[in-house]
């Protein structure tokens, strides 16, 4: 179902843990990287691959916020609005991005390029405000550098 490299990586993970089931989170990350999100058929496949039921897998997936059950934008802008970021102006950054992209938290731009997500503390409170675009950190945000960052994404 996935690329050869992904399948090999899954094999490696399943062999790595004392019990196979422990590999479920890293395996789901691989699946999500391959497909962009975790559709039912992907979950069925992961279940089969791991010797679990679909139900086992879906209940795990729904527990964690980093797994997506629906397609999302190419770039997931995850803005922290927790207190340290708020004290340093994250709400202004939020307004700026919302105006720039015409979407609010939980929405995706019509061209499928950006999703805006509100996230909890990202462990960067000393360099607040902070966002992650997919897995990359961007710290000490200002409206100006947010423009630069978003405009220069490929």
């Amino acid at each position: 179902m996935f690329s050869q490299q992904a399948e090999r990586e899954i094999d490696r993970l399943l062999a790595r843990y004392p019990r196979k089931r422990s590999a479920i989170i890293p395996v789901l990350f691989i699946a999500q990287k391959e497909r962009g999100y975790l559709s039912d058929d992907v979950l069925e496949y992961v279940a089969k691959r791991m010797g679990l039921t679909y139900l086992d897998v879906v209940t795990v997936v729904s527990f964690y916020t980093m797994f997506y059950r629906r397609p999302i934008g190419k770039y997931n802008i995850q803005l922290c609005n927790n207190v340290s970021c708020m004290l340093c102006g994250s709400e202004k950054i939020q307004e700026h991005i919302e105006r720039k992209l015409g979407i609010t938290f939980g929405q995706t731009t019509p061209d499928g390029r950006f999703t805006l997500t509100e996230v909890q503390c990202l462990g960067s409170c000393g360099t607040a405000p902070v966002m992650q675009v997919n897995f990359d950190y961007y710290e000490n945000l200002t409206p100006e550098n947010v423009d630069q960052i978003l405009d220069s994404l490929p």
Partner: protein
Amino acid sequence: MERIISARFDIPNADQLDVYLEHGGYRALKKVLTEMTPEQVIEEVKKSALRGCGGAGFPTGMKWGFVPKDSPKPKYLVCNADESEPGTFKDRQIMEKDPHGLIEGILIGAYAIGAHLAFIYIRGEYWYLKEKLERVIDEARQGGYVGRNILGTGFDCDIIVHPGAGAYICGEETALLESLEGKRGYPRLKPPFPASVGLYGCPTVINNVETLAWVPHIILRGGEWFHRLGTEKSGGHRLYSLSGHVVRPGVYERPLGYPLKRLIYEDGGGIRDGKRLKAVVPGGASSPILTAEEAESATLDYEPLAALGTMMGSGAVIVMDEDTDIVRTTYSFIKFFAHESCGWCVPCREGTRWMVKIFERLLRGGGTERDLEMLVTLSDNMFGRTHCPLGDAAAWAVGPAVKKFRADFERYLTRRGAVAAD
């Protein structure tokens, strides 16, 4: 003050094995494996009065001592790198700048408790650090420090870096174990404690990143030395994460028993824009807020902070200036707890949701006196009645804020008397 755990933070490339070795790296591991028994290691850590840096402050040596020696089951060491307590960003510094220091601490801990497999459970958002740690472990393996027959001593220990996937509750040690077993991260009932029944039902020790990173220093310089750096009940230094309205936010290594005021004004450079201090959250989102007056006399240590009705927590100090609206900051915290409540028990699940609703009503301008009373009542009723400490933390984030900063809350009251229909 001599910097110890952060000494290598400023050395370029200290995350590379050769540079780490040049600066004293893996000497403690060698000492432990060639000169000390596991019991002696535990004894030294007990003497140091090192307390867990993840939040609960449990004495580390004592925790290690609880692992049954005669159990035929495998034993596991789990490093908690979930770092999700709002305001906390110190473990990230260790993993970024001195990752071998953490690996060395993990290996020593594993030796002390008799584990041959260790895990680093790292929050999924720190993906770049997960990859970095995997490279660092490979490098250490090639150097003979990880894997089979470490340093030719016959001791085996492997380390798996395991990602979380976005769930604050998985920082709680038993929820973490559930998650590591491939399940939903619901906290387990305690007892039994993980030291006897942990991962896969086997004896398991869970320690925070910083806790483990202190261990090599204790081994090299002695438990007594470490103890003397701190206070009677809490040895050593801590990494404090300082954020909010200070001139110089950042991670500061300072002793236990350090005055909060000095951290804010000397190290942090005081309040931004010459403003005055209004409030401080001294130990992450789970620790009750202090007024400026209380902060004036507070020292960063377990018992003194407990006497002020708050706690040391993860050492995350969040500073708020005079213009801060405590209603909005408290709303942010309670939204966080409501979002992160795992839903397992009713007081936490329903209590946090209800509080969020009340805050939303207040912020819309439809709040009443009764709402403020209700927040305090909910907080009092949740406290001590939940399955895990997240519920207590949520209660603690709200009750004391309403009581101490009542004026902020009253500003939002428009219609007094009756509870708004909702």
